[in-house]
């Protein structure tokens, strides 16, 4: 159990969906990093992080997301972000982070993307 943040993974067709709930700051980001990577399925994998109930993410938290993207990319997978709260999305855009992640509006969009020709495994 990590203080302040809760992770919950579920399987949806050929993707792993992880709900991230709470906040991510300097006090708990290390624990989050370990837990997140533990939840990753064996490669190659596509992971959707549902940030619907993420209140705050610090720079080290963003770095963990980048590291996750980097790792999955190496194995022909991808991390996508679902339901990014508007203010966090605003920060993403301010930083130019949208180039690193695809931001999804709903679960169907995620399913459609992963089952699209050329993407399916």
């Amino acid at each position, binding site marked *: 159990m990590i203080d*302040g943040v809760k992770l919950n993974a579920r399987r949806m067709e050929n993707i792993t969906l992880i709900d991230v709930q709470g906040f991510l700051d300097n006090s708990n980001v290390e624990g989050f990093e370990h837990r997140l990577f533990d939840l990753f399925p064996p490669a190659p994998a596509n992971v959707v992080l549902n940030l619907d109930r993420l209140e705050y993410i610090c720079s080290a938290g963003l*770095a963990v997301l980048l590291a996750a993207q980097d790792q999955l990319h190496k194995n022909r997978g991808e991390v996508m972000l679902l339901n990014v709260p508007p*203010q966090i999305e605003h*920060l993403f855009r301010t930083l130019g982070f949208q180039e690193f992640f695809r931001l999804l509006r709903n679960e169907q969009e995620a399913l459609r993307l992963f089952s699209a020709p050329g993407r399916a495994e």
Partner: protein
Amino acid sequence: MLYFTVSRRKENLKDIRELISQETRQAGFSENTAYLCLSAVDEMLANIFDHGLTETEESKVNIAVIFYGEEVAVSFRYRGRPFQPDQAKCEKIDLPKVIAEKHGLGLKIILTTMDRVDFHYENGENTITLYKKREAAADPTDDPSILNRLLQSPPEMVLVTPPPATDPAAGNSAAAERYLAALPLETAAAKRLLAHYLKVQEWLSTERPEEELLDAILQEISHCFGCGMAALLIADAKNKNFIIQSARCIPDEVGTRLSFRHTVSGWTYLHQQLITVPAIEEDERYLAVREERYYRGVFLSTPLTLAGQSLGVLNLCAARERPPFSDAELDSLTLWLKPLLLALRHYQNSREKQRSILDVIGVLIGALDAKDAYTAGHSERVMQYSMLIANRIGLCLEEKEAIQYASLLHDIGKIGIKESILNKGGTLSTYESLLMKNHPVIGMNILRSVGALAKVGDLIKHHHEHWDGSGYPEGRRGEQIPIGSRIIMIADSFEAMTSDRPYHKAMDKHKAVLEVQKGAGRQFDPRLVTIFMEVLDEILQRDLLVQKTELKKAF
């Protein structure tokens, strides 16, 4: 303005974010901009925790949140390593490095999201200030709370200590004395007069109480005119009488009142005419006088008038050991009276000022009492206890005055705290207690706008600092805390322990005394605790007597 100190604990980050979020949104910032602010603040603080603070026991950061109209400024002040980021380097994200070290993004966030960031390093102290403007005008229907208005008062990040007061009069008077000593002997009279002016000037520049100053001037004038008896009467035109302010040879009369009617002084005052007689007891006018029958011999009574305003009367009397007043003496009298008149005006002004300050204080306390019923009467008791301690130690008049006002007003900042928090029965949430802990700073801000009470503000700001540094808002320790604040700390704690509050019942007096003793060296200045024990009997007696009384000087 919000002002608080955080110690280096990562758990504190969440509270600070919550606070920034609440405050910026309350000030009309959009959700998005509020989030950018809390994000930048969080990154800055985490960076300071990780890289700025050195491993000392004073690993603390002072944070000030100030709203200037549409802009918020968040300042971080700490002692430790300076932060001088190479802004150019932060412009592009070094992706592999960020991924490998989970580090380097924070500064990028701060510099990208904030409008401006100032880094300042001096003598081991760092001040970093983040600035951000809100993008849209605030909704005018927003109810601007008192707190909000207070927050918009001008910032005070670094307390500027005024340069030590130089006394121009002192320098001048040495030169003037040399000049006087060089004067030819025939100007002896002028010399005495000038010497008197210099003395008065010197008195005025010292912090002697005005009463003493008037006594000293009267003494000097009567001495120079060779009169053993003298009286200074201040007129109370409304009540048609005088109060004897100062006197020589008739000390019992000081403080008593004299009617305008049937007195020599009254005649002088009402006619605005100088009287001088070689033997007053032989003058037929004197026969009608019922009071003031103590004058004998050479007598002079003169009205005291400054700029067309009659202030009172001065009487000089010598029981025939001197010749009647000469014309030359009468000519010089006006010059002799000048310093007295100025001192008198000064005295009356400061009395008036004091009275109006006490009136203002009374109104402020009334406003607080109305809001927070539990503290009603608290301010006055804290003042009584504080003054019992303050009067025991060698403090100058000005300091005692500041302590009296500060002890009365120490909780005035609670005007800016929500009633729901003030009167809450249970424990406060972290955010609520952060707001509550801001009352000393709000108090200081309220008083800063009252010129005469500006010094009082500083004492109020620090009345929750603990001797061991564990208090707030700055975490000052020991003698870094103003002595007045240290006194109020003891008085306030004792009073709070011995009275009913929403969160506790009154404690037994003796148990409270033990608590104060236990706090010596931790919460309280140990030497002041000793003084507190010395005046304890008086405090316990006072406690029974203190009820609503008119506010008056207590030193």
